[in-house]
């Protein structure tokens, strides 16, 4: 995959992290964590629609919609799992509004590219990779 496959919004998010001094990157992730929107009532009332992301240590569930080839991602994770919430928030902001082809073209190693591996640890980054893989799988099934 070439870098040009990366949608602008995900590139902007990555650049935002890389331009932030390493010591402050966790605080930027905290901002994303705080921004994770509550899921809509429609989705909240149908927990069976959600897929558990088993790669994450904390309970996180995702649900991806594809309407007229436009992707909308929903995610929920508890407040006591802010790292997972931060990862989910980045993907919700980054994937929502893209076409299905654009989502499927996102490089699988995007989570490793945003400059958090050292601050968060490679083990924990694995949870975000799992979330991205599962989102792509849902897009493939639903488009």
């Amino acid at each position, binding site marked *: 995959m070439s870098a040009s496959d990366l949608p602008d919004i995900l590139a902007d998010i990555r650049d935002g992290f890389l331009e932030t001094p390493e010591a402050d990157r*966790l605080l930027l992730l905290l901002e994303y964590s705080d921004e994770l929107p509550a899921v809509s009532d429609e989705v909240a009332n149908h927990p069976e629609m959600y897929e558990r992301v088993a790669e*994450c*240590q904390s309970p996180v569930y995702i649900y991806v919609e594809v309407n007229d080839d436009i992707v909308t991602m929903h995610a929920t994770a508890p407040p*006591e*799992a802010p*790292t997972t919430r931060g990862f989910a928030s980045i993907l919700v902001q980054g994937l929502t509004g893209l076409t299905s082809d654009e989502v499927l073209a996102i490089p699988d190693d995007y989570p490793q590219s945003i400059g958090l591996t050292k*601050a968060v640890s490679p083990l924990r980054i694995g949870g975000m990779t*799992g979330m991205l893989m599962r989102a792509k799988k849902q897009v493939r099934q639903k488009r």
Partner: protein
Amino acid sequence: MAIEFDSSSPKFAEYAEPGRLVTTEWLAERLGTPGLVVVESDEDVLLYETGHIPGAVKVDWHTELNDPVVRDYVDGEGFAELLSRKGIARDDTVVIYGDKNNWWAAYALWVFSLFGHEDVRLLDGGRDRWISEGRELTRAATTRPATEYPVVERDDSAIRAYKEDVLAHIGNPLIDVRSPEEYSGERTTAPAYPEEGALRAGHIPTAQSVPWAKAVAEDGGFKSRAELDAIYRDGAGLKDGDDVVAYCRIGERSSHTWFVLTHLLGFENVRNYDGSWTEWGSAVRVPIVTGAEPGAL
């Protein structure tokens, strides 16, 4: 200068070392006292940033206590650099708290103990109790003046076991603190946890299954001395003078049990095998038993 012990709790008074625990009330009354440093240590690397006890500093097990390259803890120089940067002096009283019933807090306490930091205590009930009682949290960054923590060589001999030690120890008191499913070999990781690098499932031969959470009371704190004696002495058959090794998956849950056995029940020879299942379950030709029974060598 050491801070007085928390003598307010009848429960603590029954433990072998009553001074190893403090209550939330005790801590709340003493925040800001010179010579007292509060440390938060969590599984989630970002939890501290969402709000912490005022004045608390953060110590992350993964990015700060572990060596970044070798699977080992930081060395004496690394620990001195870390604690100096956090503003902790060698004679400070350190109170550690964290998420998940103090798993990671106990892990941090155990690592501090490898370096012989003398006065290190846990907050009974951990982060959850502090929050459930509606006590103050802040996102304000804590700044403490840097200290000059001395370089103390880490001493693994007394409280840390390596794989070779465990191989020689099989048949002696060995406690597997993981979930029953991990012990029997149905899975390699805790329920609801990701698969994390162990190629085989089961337990070390002769190990007894005593899941760590048995030591936790309904209120999230440690159980009473009598309840703990019933679990570990009557139930698991541990006796004074026993040489005990505890293990889990990466050494964090077994730190919790190590704390209970050493500081609350007074066993003098307890070692934590931090390599634990992620090492044993992938090592070549080490013996493994599956099923619910301890098995024989």
